[in-house]
Every structure is written in structure tokens, then in C-alpha cells.
């Protein structure tokens, strides 16, 4: 196989690249002072806006306080702070359930009172005829006459 003389093998190409990089690295060390100063200023500016680290203080304070209320009160409230809304929510739900139950009992009691104080006895509501009477209203005069004529012979 004839390989072009100008073409480097993979090994030669890597060697060339590393040599070139070494040369470039040397060259980058001898930058003008003005450029170095500006790069330094840029670095200082970048460090001044560095994203702050996340500080984990709470656990250390709790560990060191060992139950002391005064020294660890702030971290204690930080930790239990999320519990308070939960407690309020639970008590709220219990209150709503209690109110609904009371409301249901009052409705049933009102119904019972209405039934017991009515002129019609409660057993009447179990009679289908009485329910039909309630549904259709009082009888007309012709119906009353026909009814009385039917009843007269007996």
C-alpha cells in the first residue's frame, strides 16, 4: 500500500500535536505585561461575582447545642417551622368534619320535630294512598259526588 509521504500516521499526528501544544504553551507564558494585567483584573472581577457556596449551619448548631433551648432556638424553629402549617391543616380538617356532622344532626332533629309536631301521624307517610293524596291534591266535587254515590248503597 502506498502512503502519501505528506500524510502523517495516527502516532505521528499525535506526536505532532503534542509537540505543537508544548510550543504553544511556552509561547503563552510570554504574554505582554498589559495583557497579563487585564487578565488578572478579569480574574479578580470574576471571583468577586462567584456564586456563593451553600452553607450548612443548621445541623452543626443542633449538634453542638445538644438540646440547649437558648443557643439552638433559632435552628429549632427553622427545623420545626414546616410542622406548624401541617398542624393547622390537620386541626382545620378535623374542625370542618365536626361542623359537618353537627349540621347533619341538626337537620335530622329539625325533621323529627316537624314530623312529631305535625297533625298527621308519622304512620300516614307510610300509606301509599296518603302519598297519592299529597301528590294529586284534594279531590274535585265531581269525584266527591261519585265517591259518595258509590258509598251510599252500602
Amino acid at each position: 500500500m502506498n502512503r502519501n509521504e505528506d500524510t502523517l500516521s495516527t502516532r505521528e499526528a499525535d506526536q505532532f500535536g503534542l509537540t505543537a501544544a508544548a510550543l504553544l504553551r511556552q509561547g503563552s507564558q510570554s504574554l505582554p505585561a498589559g495583557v497579563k494585567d487585564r487578565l488578572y483584573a478579569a480574574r479578580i472581577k470574576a471571583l468577586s461575582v462567584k456564586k456563593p457556596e451553600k452553607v450548612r449551619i443548621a445541623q452543626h448548631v443542633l449538634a453542638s447545642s445538644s438540646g440547649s433551648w437558648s443557643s439552638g432556638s433559632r435552628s429549632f424553629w427553622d427545623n420545626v417551622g414546616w410542622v406548624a402549617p401541617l398542624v393547622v391543616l390537620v386541626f382545620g380538617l378535623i374542625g370542618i368534619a365536626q361542623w359537618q356532622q353537627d349540621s347533619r344532626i341538626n337537620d335530622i332533629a329539625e325533621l323529627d320535630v316537624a314530623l312529631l309536631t305535625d297533625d298527621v301521624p308519622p304512620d300516614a307517610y307510610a300509606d301509599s294512598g296518603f302519598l297519592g293524596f299529597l301528590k294529586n291534591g284534594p279531590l274535585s266535587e265531581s269525584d266527591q259526588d261519585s265517591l259518595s254515590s258509590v258509598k251510599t248503597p252500602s
Partner: protein
Amino acid sequence: MASPQELSDFLSSVEQRAFKQAVYAVRDDDAALDIVQDAMIKLAEKYGDRPAAELPLVFTRILQNRIHDWFRRQKVRNTWVTLFSNMGKKSDESDDFDPLESLSAPDDSEIHQDGAFKLERSQLLQALESEISKLPARQREAFLMRYWDELSITETALAMSCSEGSVKTHCSRATQALAKALKLKGITL
């Protein structure tokens, strides 16, 4: 998580290399300094809480993105400048301009002091940097990341948002082109 000292050390170690890489791309020292500064600030501001081991790859990616942004802005700016420069152009303005006034002689006093070896190295470096600047952008990025930043093929592919095969191809073509160009100048590394 990188401490301020670790971040400072990292930036100190890469700033000169980043500047040279930006210069190869944009061929303007001031623009390159602005690009490096923006990249440093972005790294510190957005990724300053990352572990120190992740910083090189993140910084390389930010730097390349900044260089690409610079080219995009230049393209837009050149469009407007070309548009407005054709309006109200005076023919006698060019008579006042003397190109010799804007040229400055290269500061080669150091070369003369340190002798022939340093002169040779300086010329070699100049030739190499010149040829690197002429490479296509993707080839130059791949070459510099692989050999100068010493990133692996996988890391380079990640930084360039391309496949590992593309990185190998870009690197190979860049190396072949550089070797050939230097050989034409009588230089062999």
C-alpha cells in the same frame, strides 16, 4: 464544590491559554480579552459552586460559546456598518490616512538579547500560530482542546457538542493541515 481559592487557581492556570485560543479565533487582542473576561465571569457566576474537577470542561465550553457569540455579533455589526458606510461616503477621506502611522514595529529586542535559539523558537511559534489561525474553526477547536487543553476525545466531543468520530476527524485534518503548511515553510516539528 470549588472554593474561592480553587477557582482562583484554576482561572490563573487557564487564563493565558484561553486568551491565546481566543486570539487565534478572533485575531484581535482586545476582543480576545473581552471574551476571556466574559467567560471567566460566566463561570464564576453560574458555575462557581461546581466541583473543581468539572471546571476545565465547563470553562472550555463557555469560552467556545463566547467566541461563537462574538462572531455572530460581528456578522450583524458588519452588515449595518457596510450598509451605512456606503451612505455619505467622501472620496477625499482616504487621502488623509497614512498606513505607516498605524503600523508598529514588532518588539524584537528580547529576541536579539537571548540569541539565535530564541529567535528560531519565536519564528517557529509565529508560524505555528499563524497556521492555527488559518484552520477552519471546528478543526482549530478540536486540535486545541485535544492537545493543548489535554481533554479526552469524549470530553472534547462533549464540549463541541458533536460525536467522538467528528472530533477524531477534525483533529486528524487539523494536524495534517498544520504539518503540511509548516513543511512548506521548511519547518518540521
